[in-house]
């Protein structure tokens, strides 16, 4: 506890205004010392978490853990490092490898220790070999990282990209997904052969925590409405508890409109009228579904970045967490999602001007230079996109 407070005092400085990052900015309010008691309604809890973990700073440079992962992860991480170098970003990466191939727990332990040490990480997707019988019933390593580090909130913003065609009009939805419990507990057993039970756990503590995060996020970013997504008509106790926590939390934020929607109707609404949604909060599995629908609506898995926020650590990755194993090593992957994730990470560290530098270069490459990798229906390669971004970054960095 004391060390966290110490870290907060290091960060307690006025951060530069992030007006440069126009449409996609998050307000960089100064970090203040609040208690971590999340039952006190007045605590600006999510604001405190906005820069959590950003502690590993030495000599003006930050150290961030990098987990390349499987599939397209390693090549995309290479590009991130290149762009950071061209932009002069004061971040060093400590690379830790966890691959699905390794059977040992030591690799996971090392990675988690490295993330704890540095506080912030950039991560690729780890493939879960569920077909491999030797894998046993150990849970997915992606889930292990999230649960061990208690990264309770998965946040992604689905916003229409300027210049990219889409079937729907302008969408701007923030999806906040509970990231540690629900259906992802991997608590399963076979009672008798052929009968399997899988447990979904919902706790009041986690539901309240994610609800508070969602409402405070909405308030901090000037969003007007929070929609809780659930299936409480069928799972009356589990989702009922989640819904009740959201409803109670909404009473502490009377200026934010609150509504609830059943997941199947929500899916239908997402594809017919997505403009009606603002901020959405939901348990784990529904979050998985809605995130993927949302990402698909604005252009696909190659575009949207995501963040996993905890009370002490933050891990940045692509929103839909795909490993892209079928296109690995072919120079066709879209680096946008990973580049934007790295920009989100920079913003989290307080390096706003570098964040805007990279974000603006990426949007320009998509909107003006019209770089289209195969997932966007074009013929450009990963390197085409990266080089375009690098050129813009170099040009703008010279003016900084």
């Amino acid at each position, binding site marked *: 506890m004391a060390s966290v407070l110490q870290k907060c005092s290091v960060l307690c400085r006025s951060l530069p205004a992030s007006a440069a990052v126009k449409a996609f900015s998050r307000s960089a309010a100064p970090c203040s010392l609040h208690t971590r008691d999340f039952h006190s309604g007045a605590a600006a809890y999510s604001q405190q978490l906005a820069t959590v973990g950003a502690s590993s700073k030495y000599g003006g440079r930050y150290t961030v853990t990098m987990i390349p992962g499987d599939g397209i992860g390693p090549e995309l991480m290479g590009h991130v490092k290149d762009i950071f170098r061209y932009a002069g970003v004061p971040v060093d990466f400590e690379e830790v490898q966890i691959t699905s191939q390794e059977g040992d727990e030591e690799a996971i332990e090392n990675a988690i220790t490295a993330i704890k040490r540095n506080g912030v990480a950039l991560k690729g997707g780890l493939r879960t070999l569920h077909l491999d019988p030797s894998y046993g019933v150990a849970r997915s390593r992606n889930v292990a990282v999230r649960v061990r580090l208690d990264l309770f909130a998965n946040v992604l913003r689905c916003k229409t990209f300027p210049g990219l065609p889409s079937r729907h009009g302008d969408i701007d939805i923030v999806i906040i997904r509970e990231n540690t419990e629900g259906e992802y507990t991997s608590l399963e057993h076979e009672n008798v052969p*052929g009968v*399997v039970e899988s*447990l979904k756990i919902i706790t009041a503590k986690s539901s309240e925590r994610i609800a508070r995060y969602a409402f405070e996020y909405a308030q901090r970013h000037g969003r007007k409405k929070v929609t809780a997504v659930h299936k409480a008509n069928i799972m009356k106790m589990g989702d009922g508890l989640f819904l009740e926590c959201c409803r109670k939390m909404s009473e502490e934020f009377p200026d934010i409109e609150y509504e609830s929607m059943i997941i199947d109707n929500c899916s239908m609404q997402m594809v017919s009228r997505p403009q009606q949604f603002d901020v959405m909060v939901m348990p784990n599995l529904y979050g*998985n579904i809605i995130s993927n629908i949302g990402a698909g609506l604005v252009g696909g898995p190659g575009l949207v970045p995501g963040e996993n926020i905890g009370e002490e650590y933050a891990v940045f990755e692509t929103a839909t967490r795909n490993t892209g194993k079928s296109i690995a090593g072919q120079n066709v992957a879209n680096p946008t999602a990973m580049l934007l994730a790295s920009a989100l990470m920079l913003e989290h560290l307080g390096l706003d001007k570098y964040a805007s530098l990279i974000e603006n270069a990426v949007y320009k490459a998509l909107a003006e230079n019209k770089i289209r990798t195969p997932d966007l229906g074009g013929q450009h390669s990963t390197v085409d996109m990266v080089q375009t971004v690098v050129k813009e970054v170099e040009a703008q960095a010279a003016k900084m």
Partner: protein
Amino acid sequence: MAAGVYRSLSQGLRRITPFGSRLYSDEARTVTLIPGDGIGPEISAAVQEIFAAASAPIKWETSDVTAIKGPGGKYIIPQEAQESMNKNKIGLKGPLKTPVGKGHPSMNLLLRKTFQLYANVRPCKSIEGFKTPYPDVDLVTIRENTEGEYSGIEHMIVDGVVQSIKLITEPASRRVAEFAFDFARAQGRDTVTAVHKANIMRMSDGLFLKCCREVAEDYKDIRFEEMYLDTVCLNMVQDPTQFDVLVMPNLYGDILSDLCAGLIGGLGVTPSGNIGADGVAIFESVHGTAPDIAGKDLANPTALLLSAVMMLRHLGLHDHARRIETAAFETIKEGTALTGDLGGKAKCSDFTREVSKKVQEIE
């Protein structure tokens, strides 16, 4: 042993859904009709009118399934309705209202339990003339309807911690997988995709997937694929044309079938069928009873009509199905006789008359 039981069940299904041939020689087939509540009666009447105009060999036996208190004090479907359905095997149902009141079960749940409706089938095909951002959708979702996340088994372990149990069993998974492949074969579809999250729910979805894989071995003429639920959602909203038949457990099915309904225009135009044990099949519209427009001749009978078309296909009456479906789609495309929910001002009877007229003109 379980495998044997379900093999003979699916053989029974094959008899009922022969590809391209009629079920009985020239006799009309009696079907149980459950008009339902709210707009139910008027849309049922519309369907009957259109079927008569098409000379479809269907005899309707109307039934009322409003639950009554049985001898044990629990609510049951009236005996007469149960007998009718068990005799005819095939039913068409309008929207049902669940009465408010303590202890009254959901009507749909009651029907499901009474007739052991284990698979919910929703064909989603884009309707020309009813524009959505997704033209060219043509897929079918098949959802296991008895277990999974909807087992209703929940406990509060300690204060503030709730555990909900998702149940996956081999017989149920195998049964729905066999139906999915049978359906694909009978309807001439070439791919079945199993939708799952076995990377997270290794044992439960793993079991479901195993059953699908084993059943796929018996249907080498149908291509079998597996895809994670999130990947399906991601790809579905970008390019739904890549999907054909999808089979999945209960919750994913609930969500995906509604998602696909949203792609083609919503529950007002989506057909649905429920397959039960012993060859029972109940086709239904999945929208609500719309009490605000009930009795005013404003309702849209499209969903119930398309469900009835699905019923004809299930009976092997493909020619009549094609004619009625084409007539309905042409009427919607023409746009002069659209009901309010489709953006027009016509009455239900206008729409019905127009479709009836067209169906007689189509060869």
